[in-house]
């Protein structure tokens, strides 16, 4: 937390955010991804701007790019994604990240006569998306936003997906706005009927850094006795740790070897050596406690037995129990766990 009560992500958090971004990119694969921009004008920092994006240059150029480069996708419904770095943050009283921030923007162009239905579907999809990453899926709420007086209520609607903590605190992790376009500037053919019409746009804006903070807070806000940080398995910056009570030099070699196997499989291991050699049982317990607080979902526990027969323990942060696996199960058994 910085002086002006804004927050800033450290390396661990930034890595978490980066993974969230990757997930966002792979969500709704129908999209044409239109890259990154630095513009700061077309972000809906104020409430009114949520509905006026269609008049921005960026939206124009995106639309043209779609028609030019993806002619087969240029019909309703279609989806555009782009990133935008901005110095203006979305208004969020409870939690706000120090600028500049990254906005993940999805524009869903749909048939105007089914706009509402798409809008609700998208709300539901987005909410579920957030729920999947949460330690408590019930914390997400869809909150309708009042429309500013300047906006025609027939053409616009807006909701925020709020992540709530306790009674009072909440963060808007995603903004969804529906705007029906008019006139001839933007016209697309209807995928079903072929008739061209001005589409309705559903825009989703996620402020990456703020949303990442929200997810981190989510990981701490659980009713458990332990101080685990319940980060989502798939998003966790460190997916796995290796720990053992040091017995002899062979043990260090085995740790090194397993670390190597896991790293080559693409798993993200704990910082530093990637493994921890502890002196005794209590130090090992301390280490595990630390891993839990860092949100590492699994820790491989090696023992003297491992050196004999290859059996090791896979300890889970969430159940605090360990299952026995064999060295030959690595890395596939672990890979499976992180797949979905």
């Amino acid at each position: 937390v910085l002086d002006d009560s804004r927050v800033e992500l450290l390396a661990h958090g930034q890595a978490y955010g980066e993974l969230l971004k990757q997930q966002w990119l792979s969500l709704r694969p129908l999209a044409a991804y239109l890259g990154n921009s630095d513009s700061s004008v077309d972000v809906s920092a104020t409430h009114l701007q949520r509905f006026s994006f269609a008049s921005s240059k960026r939206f124009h150029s995106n639309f043209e790019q779609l028609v030019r480069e993806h002619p087969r996708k240029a019909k309703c419904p279609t989806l555009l994604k782009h990133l935008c770095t901005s110095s203006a943050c979305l208004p969020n009283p409870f939690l706000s990240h120090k600028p500049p921030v990254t906005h993940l923007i999805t524009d869903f162009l749909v048939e105007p006569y089914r706009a509402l239905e798409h809008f609700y579907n998208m709300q539901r999809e987005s909410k579920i998306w957030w729920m999947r990453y949460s330690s408590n899926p019930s914390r997400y709420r869809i909150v309708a936003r009042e429309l500013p007086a300047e906006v025609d209520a027939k053409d616009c609607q807006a909701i925020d997906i709020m992540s709530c903590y306790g009674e009072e605190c909440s963060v808007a992790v995603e903004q969804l706005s529906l705007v029906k376009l008019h006139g001839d500037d933007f016209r697309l053919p209807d995928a079903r009927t072929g008739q061209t019409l001005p589409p309705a746009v559903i825009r989703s804006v996620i402020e990456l850094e703020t949303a990442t903070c929200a997810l981190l807070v989510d990981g701490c806000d659980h009713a458990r006795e332990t101080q685990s940080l319940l980060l989502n398995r798939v998003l966790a910056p460190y997916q796995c740790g290796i720990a053992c009570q040091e017995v002899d030099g062979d043990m260090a070699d085995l740790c090194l070897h397993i670390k190597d196997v896991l790293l080559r499989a693409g798993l993200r291991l704990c910082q530093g050596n990637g493994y921890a050699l502890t002196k005794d049982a209590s130090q090992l317990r301390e280490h595990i406690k630390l891993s839990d607080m860092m949100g590492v979902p699994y820790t491989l526990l090696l023992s003297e037995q491992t050196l004999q027969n290859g059996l090791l323990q896979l300890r889970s942060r969430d159940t605090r129990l360990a299952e026995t696996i064999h060295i030959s199960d690595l890395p596939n058994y672990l890979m499976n766990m992180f797949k979905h």
Partner: protein
Amino acid sequence: ASKPRREHYASSAIKIYRKVKPLPQKAATADRQPQKASVEVSGEYSENLVKVQMISQNLHRQIFPQTTRHTTEEQIAAARQHKEDLRRHGVDIESSAPVPDVQLQLPALQGQNIEEHFHSIAKEQVEPYEQLLLPLVQCRELPARPKRWEFLAGWTAYDPDDGTATPVEQPLEKGLVFDVEVCVSAGQAPVLATAVSTKRWYCWVSPKLTKHRLAVEKVEPCDVGADFERPHYTLEELIPLGAGGPSLVVGHNVSYDRARLREQYRIEDSGTRFVDTMSLHMCVSGVTSYQRAMLKSKKEPAPEDLGWLEQSSLNSLVEVHRLYCGGQALSKEPRNIFVEGTLEQVRTNFQSLVNYCAGDVEATHRVLRVLYPMYGERFPHPASLAGMLEMGSAYLPVNSNWERYIREAQLTYEDLSIEAKYHLGRRAEEACSLLDEEQYRSNLWLWDEDWSVQQLKLKQAPKRKSLPRVELPELSDLSSEQRRLYAKFQHLYDQRSLLPARRPLLPGYPQWYRKLCRKPPTEDAELEEDRWTPGASEISTGMQIAPKLLSLCWEGYPLHYQREHGWGFLVPFRSDAARAERIPIQELLARCAVPEFARQCASQEESNLAYDMLPGQLEEHLAKRQHYKKISQKQQRLEAQYQGSGVWCNQVLDDCCFFLKLPHKNGPSFRVGSPLSKDFLNKFSENVLSSGEPACQAAARVIDIARMMSYWRNNRDRIMGQMVVWLEQEQLPSELTDGKSYGAICPQVVACGTLTRRAMEPTWMTASNSRPNRLGSELRSMVQAPPGYRLVGADVDSQELWIASVLGDAYACGQHGATPLGWMTLSGSKSNGSDMHSITAKAVGISRDHAKVINYARIYGAGQQFAETLLRQFNPTFSASEAKAKAMKMFAITKGKRVYRLREEFHDELEDRGYSSYEASRLALQRNRTLGEVFHRPSWQGGTESAMFNRLEEIATGSQPKTPFLGGRLSRALESDAEQEQRFLPTRINWVVQSGAVDFLHLMLVSMRWLMGPHVRFCLSFHDELRYLVQEDMAAKAALAMHITNLLTRSYCVSRIGLHDLPMSVAFFSSVEVDTVLRKECTMDCQTPSNPHGLRIGYGIQPGQSFSISEAIDKAGGSDVSQWPWIKQRT
């Protein structure tokens, strides 16, 4: 305006029709009513002797033309008595506020009076259909069935003489007996049908059957998402019967056949009506639910049941045919092909299946021949048949929102189940850590789960042979160091061959948790759609572990499951934990101390047990049995002291706890399978069932979710199974070609489906009102009028209560509102506490809402015992005696006391006065005679509802009970037991009121048809609610016609029971809704979990309008209904 009227009543010595009680300012000037009108209206005011406002003078003149409003001296004297009675029961007759009078010019009645009027208009309406029906009824011999059926698509007619087959567009005659068959595996559309008229046979075959591939182009389903393969029916698949002019179809459960007729789905009414032999059977020989159970049971019937068993049967065609026609039983075997077989099998067995279908048609005809004359005799009024025909033509318009509704409900349902599952999974993970140091032993819920752990062990390595070498990954791109390490640990990899062939799942985890997990997929066999995730992925709210993971409590005690008894809970009865082997008694005691009633048990138990320990081993077994026996003896005492709702089942666990079962709705002998099921969900709100960890939000949320989901889970199959037929663009009226999808549902209504002849239908008639926490409960609002149309309808205000009370009024006093119940029904108001529920609530000392429930229960025949149970359920703090006292008081006030009067022959020896039942039975006993020999049938006296109950009992115990309004007879199954007067009495009493309400509904249907002619289409009616589909420009007139229908129907009803006037408060609906969708009130937004934004924002549906009588007059263009074009034309 008032002058001639005064002359009119000049013959009456007493001026009872007081002039102009000044209307309260608000009522008179409300709603933009011009001042002039209210002055004019005020001259219309009238009230009766007990100050109940009567209909305006002009209306009375039109409806009761032969009756003048005057009273005799005797009536006035009687009224004094009535008023005294009313005051005694807490009714202040001055308290009611007058309502504005109404000026209306009704169309002229057809006939001398209102009774003749209804007879004549109903007759007129059924006439064309009777003319088609009677020839079928009278036809002794149907045309001969053709020897061979042609395998031709569409209709084929068969010559009655030589059987020649001729393809026809549709049957040539307008009166048919008809039956449709459906091949269930190929969807709900018909595959074949047969019909017979008095002239010839017909057979219809679906093109789907004749052509192996239907040539009909596959239509793009309307707005259907890719995930949902929903069937999509169009008119082409259905059977054409033709439209225009009246035609009549007879069938058994004919609404099923009707739903497969093409013309029924068009917005315009086809003129076809349906006679359902099943409904006729219910009217003539319907049974109670008890009787139905008896009919179904295989047991030898009791002697007292033999009488009615001969008079009735279950509803299937086979049973109904056996009852009315006897002879050889119908064979239903070929039917299995339709139920289980494929289209191909139907094709192969075509001849025999059509013959089977035709056989059913013949059987239906034989049933009709016997049954219809019986029906006609028992239900002589033409309105009964007219009503039935109308009820059978229900029509529910829908549009693409229907599919959207199903999709949203289904998705929301899935979302919620994922959420619930997720919470449970988290709880399970958390619970795992109890394995550490066996902490689970002290967990109140999880102590009896299987915490055993499996280990992964390697097999013994072979002594001599070395292990096979495990191939390691490609090492070429590795550094030398990496390669060195691989080589170093190669021997560890090699031991893979020593792993067991079948690897245990999650070695190191407790057994109960492992049961919730799936094996990870092997590399080659991963199914895409069913992705594996680690953890308790198989958990669901229905599992036995779920309530435990949520730490649920009943009345504060932890839940516990026993295979033998189902779900129950643990109540400790001793505080020393010495003998507890498994139950964590310390923790239990820390949570809930030994309750008072169990404490004494414990001390006695201890001495018992000490005694039991003395004998040697041989006797131990015996002693144990005795020990349990002792508990069971004590049980009665315990049960009496235990105040909760758990059920004793003679179970002691670990010698420290009682195990009590959760109460099952079907009675104490049933076991509860899941405390998270529908029946228990509201126990959570009553705090009977709660989570033992109030801080745990997960439990609260899972329960919330379970509550939200239960409605959809219980109803979705029926809702999704509704057969929606979509109309193509060219089948729509030209004004509806806006590119949206329109369709309709013909709900499968059994026009008279119960003993009381109420209509039955499983989806729509029981549809819940929309509730914010009930997923999918916006169902009814998904019936949506097409653009340019409106749904017009209303609920009859307190219909059954009024019927019951007016019967009492007419019988006891001949005056509206002269009995306390009558007055409260007519003039009582909730706002000043003068309505029935408020008065009972006040008298007994309970809340109005509770009083309301008990009042209805009583009027529907529930006894004092039941009221007692209800009272305790509402208020658990009432002791048994308190509840009993309150129930007794309530019954004394309302129903009154049972009083016996002597028969005349005993007047000499005994005083002629009322005797209580105790006195009466004593006197009879003294004389060695039965009660009935000495006394008349007892009557109720002194209660607000005594008059009503006396009248109802009088009707119900008659030898041939008839409904008061249309004179319809009670079912033969209940009539036959004349000597057993008390048998089924509550049912019969209830029948009088409910069947009376059905008469009421039938009359309304007739009246609406008379007023609106072809301008309304019947949509749906549930009991006291009536809805029509109307073109927009006719909506206001239809609303006014609804109000007038209420006026005329009530007038008819009171006229039938000897009253020739009608109270103003019930003359019109309180409001008629003119709306675009079907909903209880036109302002309801129907927000539910599946419709979170409501109808207005979510579906763009605006609130409807609600018209009082004066607004309806305004909107319909004035009060002169006789000038409506179609009415004027008729006269």
